[in-house]
């Protein structure tokens, strides 16, 4: 079945929702404030990261607590290429980020996928913190705690340096990032719907049985790890120009925790769950941070509530409400 046929084969309401959400995102800068558009831009970058994380977590059953490592690889690639090598083409930045992150994910993944559960989580956390320490200690190269500037990149070869910063971010760069997110969402949808994706789910649910059926469990986990790392790096590379500065805090374990939080908040069992979690997290954090200095406490309480009451996240709650509605009809 061709991709467009597949989309058409979805229930009409789902297609309609996707089209409406897509158009809403596209047209948002026309009616929303620059700041809301900016927050949405950061969401697009995080959305790419959590899509990748959920391939590993939701579909393969491996919880990474060091995924900010790959995100930082992408962000620092943008900083190095624009700042040190004067390479300003965003497409080059993205390609280099994918190459570097894939190589590193292949090396690290080869070690990590030998382990599961808490051991996998701790190993990924350890690699994330190793990179954090590298960024701090090799300050002559990385800028240390002061970080590095990220210059404004060209988009599709166009130098847009004359446009005011916020206009650039909330118009040209916004659309550019949205398009990349749309493409990568579609690619991820194809991945999880493919036989490869089904194998990952089988590995998640019963690795022994999957192995017995001829699925190379470690190899498939390794593939998922590499794809996931590449997605995180693309997200990081997209986020860096929006911030304008990268620093070791991006790879600190709490940032990896934020990615996991977004995934849990939205619901890792649903394909769009992490994206819902991402957008809710970003806007919720924005509001709560302005309201109280105890915003960390509130987020901790939300996380505890999620785990205890709604482990399926927002998508899980919506899904059960829809099911209940249908059952009542």
């Amino acid at each position: 079945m061709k991709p467009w046929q597949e989309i058409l084969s979805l229930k009409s309401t789902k297609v309609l929702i996707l089209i409406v959400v897509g158009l809403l995102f596209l047209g948002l800068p026309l009616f929303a404030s620059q700041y809301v558009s900016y927050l949405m831009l950061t969401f697009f970058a995080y959305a790419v990261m959590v899509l990748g994380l959920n391939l590993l977590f939701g579909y393969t059953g491996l919880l990474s607590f060091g995924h900010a490592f790959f995100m930082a690889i992408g962000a620092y690639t943008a900083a190095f290429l624009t700042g040190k090598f004067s390479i300003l083409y965003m497409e080059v930045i993205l390609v280099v980020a994918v190459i570097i992150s894939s190589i590193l994910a292949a090396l690290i993944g080869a070690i990590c996928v030998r382990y599961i559960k808490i051991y996998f989580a701790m190993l990924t956390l350890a690699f994330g913190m190793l990179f954090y320490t590298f960024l701090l200690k090799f300050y002559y190269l990385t800028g240390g705690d002061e970080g590095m500037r990220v210059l404004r990149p060209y988009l599709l070869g166009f130098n847009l340096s004359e446009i005011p910063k916020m206009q650039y971010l909330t118009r040209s760069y916004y659309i550019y990032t949205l398009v990349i997110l749309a493409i990568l969402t579609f690619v991820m949808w194809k991945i999880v719907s493919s036989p490869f994706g089904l194998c990952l789910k089988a590995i998640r649910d019963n690795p022994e049985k999957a192995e017995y059926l001829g699925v190379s469990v470690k190899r498939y986990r390794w593939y998922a790890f590499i794809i996931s790392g590449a997605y995180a790096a693309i997200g990081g590379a997209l986020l860096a120009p929006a911030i304008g500065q990268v620093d070791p805090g991006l790879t600190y374990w709490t940032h990896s925790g934020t990615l996991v939080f977004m995934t849990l908040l939205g619901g890792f069992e649903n394909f769009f769950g992490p994206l819902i979690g991402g957008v809710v997290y970003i806007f919720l954090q924005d509001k709560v941070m302005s309201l109280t200095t105890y915003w960390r406490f509130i987020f901790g309480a939300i996380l505890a509530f999620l785990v205890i009451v709604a482990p399926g996240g927002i998508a899980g709650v919506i899904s059960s409400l829809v099911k209940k509605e249908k059952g009542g009809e």
Partner: protein
Amino acid sequence: MEKTRREFVKLVGGAALGAGVILAGKGRASAQTIPAKGAPSEPIRIGVMPGLTGVIGVPGTAAWRTTQIWADEVNASGGILGRKVELHMEEETTAKECVERFKKLTLEKKVDVIVGLMSTGNGLAVGPLAEELGQLWLAWDGTTQKGVEETMPKTKFAFKSIDNEAEAIGGAILTAKYFPKIKTIAGINNDYSYGRDCWESFQAVLKHFHPNVKAVEALWPKLGETDFTSHIAALKKAKPDLIMTSFWSGDVPILMKQAAAVGLFKTTKGCFTTGGGVHYTLKKEFTPEGLILGYNSMYFKWTDTWPLLTKFVKTYFDKYKEYPVYECDHAYFVLQAYKTAVEKCYSILGKWPTKEEVGKALSGIQVPSLSGYRGYREDNIMTCNFFMGITTHKNPYDFVTIDPVEVLTPSQIIKPTAETKLYEWIKGWKS
């Protein structure tokens, strides 16, 4: 180092003017209740970005409290040109979040000016943003230095704090003055750019005065470390004549307590360049006399002849039962500078000034603040006196104070221009 006659006159003149400002402010309180002609009627919106948790929590909270005290006082006296001030607080956290908060304050809350930020890492992220957004940003402790080099020598909207290494330079000047016979030194500084730059500049200045001084140990605990027993053991083993540290937060009393337990400073001299940042935690029971202690840009007991300081210390103590730390004056000064610049612009233009016009008025400004006269240079870098001295137990408190109090002027401790190379400047000093 002696103060110059000009600097002395400035200090004394400043004290007299400071008293005048308070009296004038009192006189204005009942007179200014409606906005001045041509001024908008709505309040002035001030964005505030204090760090309230983690290692920057103590000074950040002090600065936030001061901002509120200042706002209450200004509003009670009729506001700025009759306009009340309204504070919009967004916490200083990571660089990424600071960029978001800064944009929120500018684009959503549409503030007239943003004050705050203590971390230079955050300053480096926000400085260029301030210029790009055309938003006035008056930093407390945040600079836009990369190491000891200024990355933004020419700004219109970003007003940066005094150079990070100023206190280390001051500490070295006093070390050379008070401990001229030392031969060996050791450093214990946090493992980040501020710690490294302080250690480097401290050594450069000290070796300028005493070329034969040798560094025998350099230790780098991470920022936020709370156990220094292994570091203290290494310091005891190295047996330096003097230990220098640029610790500035909760790590100062911890180091002092753990050092006291093994009598480290009984045989070794010490220079705590910035320890006064948490001065009230340095209890007499574990903080010895005879150490060099730096209070950065404000010492709560500097003088009884500067009414702004006396009044503020009383207000702060009455409200919070603590004696204020230096970050208070960073917070007080930037607001006072903004107020003065707006009033100056208005007196010239006859209308409410734009952010750019206020920025122009801020360049080169001098205003009376809690620690005397402070200002901005033409390159928009803050200038102020630094207060250091020798710890003493002869006071009515349960913590140490300093006696004598040395006032180090900007010309002594910061390079004259943003473009000046720090170590070349130090080499050019008279010995």
